[in-house]
């Protein structure tokens, strides 16, 4: 993010920068040009001073050499000394003056320190300059470094008649020249200093003036921008009512004008949109108010939106749907609440790929039960369905939840189910009566009636006692019924429940069961008023009386009048008749006599249903033990056979039937998974040509013959090579080898694999055969064929 810098700051800063840069540049130009000028000037004056020094020296040397000709010829020391020393004294530029003869012996040596010019010694001079001067034949000059400054020596020979008599020498110092140069340079520097000073003060002044001016100017430019920015900020925040003023007549004013146009357009547009939204919302509200379902919407984070249908509060039994959470509305427990969020997450991810109907099924709740009012036990039943709500791009935005009150429908369903149950139990009772020997049924009704009578007497007595106690001790009435009493009542009720159940009188059994439950309450410490419970039991006894009367009516309808039903003949008498008949049978030729004899013999025969009764009970008991549901069906159950027709087959039947229940029939949850209804054990019996054929069929899982073979190989009952060549029947036959069980676990009922071995051995003993027909997933049928007379084997 870039740091915000206002236009004004930028303007001021940049202008100051520009002014400063200009001044710095100008200053450096001036300094450079000043230095160049000063240098050039000092060089020029140095040249001109030097030229004038040279001219002066040359003339001095030349004139002196001419003037000294006579003086040297006359050896006039004094005249020469005077001339030279006065020349040195008169001119400040002349550092020294020397006259020496041909042997370099100085006659005069005048300098500033020695104005008279008397030489310090009369020895010849010996230095490089003297040797140079002594070699001259005409005037010349030479420059050399003296003590304080450079010296130019001008020398000339004094010639008389072509003969050199001596040499005149003048040394001119450049001191004055250098001094004037230094002075010129100092002047230049002073000028520069002055210039810089003037320039700097001008610069500072310009900066101050520039800053003030630019600040004022920029303020004038940026203030409209500032107000424009404030206005646009408000517009960006959604406030389209702010009017933008056109404050200036430049580009910014123009911009403000365009902004204002834009604002008013956007405002018109949003106003129009708001109208549209209001209209749509009105439509939605109309729908929500008229819809007959509890409708509300849930966002993907699980929050509930504020729109909901008018009926939603009533249906969901809350005061305001919008103030409730989803958990409260759909009555979700903690776990379901978490699952609901998971589900929202899932549908968000998958709603584009999968059908909604599949996703909806995964929602944690589809049915809700609510109490109609806080203090009733009546319930309302709601069906909940979910619909996705997507935006234009097809992304899921929320879920619509529809709750439909189905209490009425449910009540009707329940009523119908109730009616159906009554109807069924009625039919069942009729069938049961019809299929039970009349004497047995009559015995049952007599027994039950007498028990009910006894129960009634007891209950009435207890009710009387309770009332009496309350009358005598109104404040502390506590009537406890002893355990023995309750136990006795319980025993009778339990017997009624059991026997009526076994005959298929479901209603009677149901009432007895309810009465049992109420008895349990009598055992508990006094919580409720005893007489309430007792009255309830009394009511149930009424119902049971009614049921037994109904049964009685049915019995009469089926069997006719009472005297036609109950025919009880002691077995000894029947056996007597049979014995007599057997005696007659051998003598009689008359077919009618034979018929009579036959009928008499058949007096002791029993229907298959009762012959297999023992095995039916065994099967049901086994099923209860392993928590399975079965129906035991006897084919052709009314056909009658001699009572000893199953003799010798007990072991076989016990094992085969147990196997069918324990191994054949699957666990209830497995059957449900497979779409199978209650398990079925179907037995059939027939006797043909002296051979008894019994088959026991179940509709269970069937025998996995491959597994039988595997187990046999494991047990070394058979080699793998041989096993591969077995036919299906032979594979099944391996079951009879013993020790083979395909049961996953050994129960106390079966699973050790010995059952089939026992069956097989027994059948061999009886000279019979056994066949197993099994289909995986469909069931198994075991068919046993055994001769009536075991001495006569099956062919």
């Amino acid at each position, binding site marked *: 993010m870039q740091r915000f810098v206002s236009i004004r700051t930028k303007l001021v800063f940049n202008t100051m920068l520009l002014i400063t840069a200009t001044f710095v540049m100008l200053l450096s130009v001036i300094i450079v040009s000043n230095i160049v000028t000063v240098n050039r000037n000092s060089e020029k004056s140095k040249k001109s001073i030097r030229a004038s020094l040279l001219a002066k020296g040359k003339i001095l040397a030349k004139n002196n050499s001419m003037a000294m000709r006579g003086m040297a010829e006359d050896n006039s020391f004094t005249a020469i000394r005077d001339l030279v020393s006065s020349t040195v004294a008169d001119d400040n530029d002349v550092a020294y003056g020397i006259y020496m003869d041909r042997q370099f012996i100085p006659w005069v040596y005048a300098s500033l320190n020695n104005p008279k010019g008397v030489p310090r010694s009369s020895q010849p001079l010996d230095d490089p300059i003297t040797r140079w001067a002594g070699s001259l034949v005409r005037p010349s000059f030479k420059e050399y470094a003296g003590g304080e400054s450079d010296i130019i020596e001008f020398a000339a020979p004094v010639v008389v008649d072509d003969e050199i008599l001596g040499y005149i020498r003048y040394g001119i110092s450049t001191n004055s020249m250098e001094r004037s140069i230094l002075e010129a340079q100092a002047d230049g520097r002073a000028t520069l200093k002055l210039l810089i000073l003037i320039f700097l003060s001008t610069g500072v002044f310009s900066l101050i003036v520039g800053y003030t001016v630019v600040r004022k100017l920029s303020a004038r430019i940026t203030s409209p921008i500032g107000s424009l920015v404030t206005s646009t900020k408000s517009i960006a925040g959604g406030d389209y009512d702010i009017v933008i003023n056109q404050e200036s007549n430049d580009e910014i004013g123009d911009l403000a004008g365009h902004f204002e146009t834009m604002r008013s357009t956007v405002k018109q547009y949003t106003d129009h949109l708001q109208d549209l939204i209001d209209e749509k919302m009105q439509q939605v509200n109309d729908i929500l108010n008229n819809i007959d379902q509890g409708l509300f919407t849930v966002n993907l984070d699980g929050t509930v939106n504020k729109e909901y249908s008018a009926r939603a509060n009533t249906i969901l039994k809350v005061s305001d749907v919008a103030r409730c959470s989803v958990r409260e509305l759909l009555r979700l427990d903690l776990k379901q609440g978490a*699952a609901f969020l*998971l*589900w929202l997450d899932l549908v968000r991810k998958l709603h584009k*790929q999968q059908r909604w109907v*599949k996703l909806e099924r*995964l929602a*944690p709740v589809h049915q809700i039960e609510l109490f109609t009012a806080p203090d009733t036990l009546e319930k309302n039943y709601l069906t909940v369905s979910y619909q996705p709500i997507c935006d234009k791009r097809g992304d899921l935005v929320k879920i619509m939840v529809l709750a439909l009150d189905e209490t009425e429908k449910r009540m009707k369903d329940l009523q119908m189910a109730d009616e159906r149950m009554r109807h069924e139990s009625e039919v069942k009772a009729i069938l049961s009566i019809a299929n039970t020997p009349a004497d047995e049924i009559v015995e049952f009704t007599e027994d039950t009636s007498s028990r009910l009578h006894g129960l009634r007497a007891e209950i009435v007595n207890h009710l009387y006692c309770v009332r009496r106690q309350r009358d005598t001790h109104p404040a502390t009435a506590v009537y406890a019924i002893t355990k023995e009493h309750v136990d006795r009542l319980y025993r009778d009720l339990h017997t009624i429940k059991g026997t009526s159940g076994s005959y298929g009188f479901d209603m009677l059994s149901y009432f007895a069961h309810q009465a049992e439950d109420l008895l349990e309450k009598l055992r508990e410490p006094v919580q409720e008023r005893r007489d309430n419970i007792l009255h309830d039991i009394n009511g149930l006894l009424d119902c049971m009386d009614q049921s037994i009367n109904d049964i009685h009516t049915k019995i009469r309808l089926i069997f006719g009048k009472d005297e036609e039903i109950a025919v009880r003949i002691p077995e000894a008498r029947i056996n007597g008749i049979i014995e007599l008949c057997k005696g007659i049978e051998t003598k009689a030729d008359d077919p009618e006599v034979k018929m009579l004899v036959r009928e008499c013999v058949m007096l002791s025969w029993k229907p298959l249903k009762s012959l297999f009764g023992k095995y039916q009970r065994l099967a049901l008991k086994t099923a209860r033990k392993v928590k399975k549901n079965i129906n035991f069906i006897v084919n052709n159950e009314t056909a009658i056979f001699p009572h000893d027709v199953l003799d010798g087959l007990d072991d076989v039947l016990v094992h085969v039937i147990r196997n069918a229940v324990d191994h054949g029939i699957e666990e209830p949850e497995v059957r*449900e*998974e497979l*779409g199978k209804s209650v398990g079925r054990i179907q037995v059939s019996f027939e006797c043909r040509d002296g051979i008894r054929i019994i088959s026991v069929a179940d509709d269970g899982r069937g025998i996995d013959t491959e597994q039988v073979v595997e187990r046999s190989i494991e047990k070394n009952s058979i080699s793998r090579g041989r096993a591969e060549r077995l036919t299906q029947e032979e594979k099944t036959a391996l079951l009879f080898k013993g020790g083979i069980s395909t049961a996953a676990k050994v129960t106390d009922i079966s699973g050790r694999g010995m059952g089939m071995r026992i069956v097989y051995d027994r059948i061999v003993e009886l000279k019979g055969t056994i066949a197993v027909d099994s289909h995986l997933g469909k069931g198994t049928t075991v068919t046993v064929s055994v001769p009536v007379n075991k001495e006569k084997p099956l062919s």
Partner: protein
Amino acid sequence: MGRTVVIVDDSKYLVKQVVDFFEGYLGFTVCATGHDGNEAIALYRAHRPDLITLDITMPNKTGAAAMKEILREFPDAHILMISAVRGEAMLECMNGGAKGYIEKPLKFNDPAFIDDFKETIREIFRESPG
């Protein structure tokens, strides 16, 4: 070239039915079948099928646990849950990465059930081309 599938269910009878359906109706090649969660993982490793079907309640290791292990190893695995378990357990499987689910009982003689099964398979393979 048809897609490949591995079918795992503890009921042999159901495995057979599902195999018949995949081969007969959907034109899949069934590479292998298994009967518990451990087998499911081993078979997936061995065959790397296009699809694996899992029951939830199975001996040794549940289908849900097997699903997690398979997905940990093969994040792109296509898993179809076939189970009588409803509600939260199935929801968890779907959230855990299963691509689809079929509820038992398997009513292979109900046209609506078959249509749903086919559509579920289509949905599973729609998201990934090829």
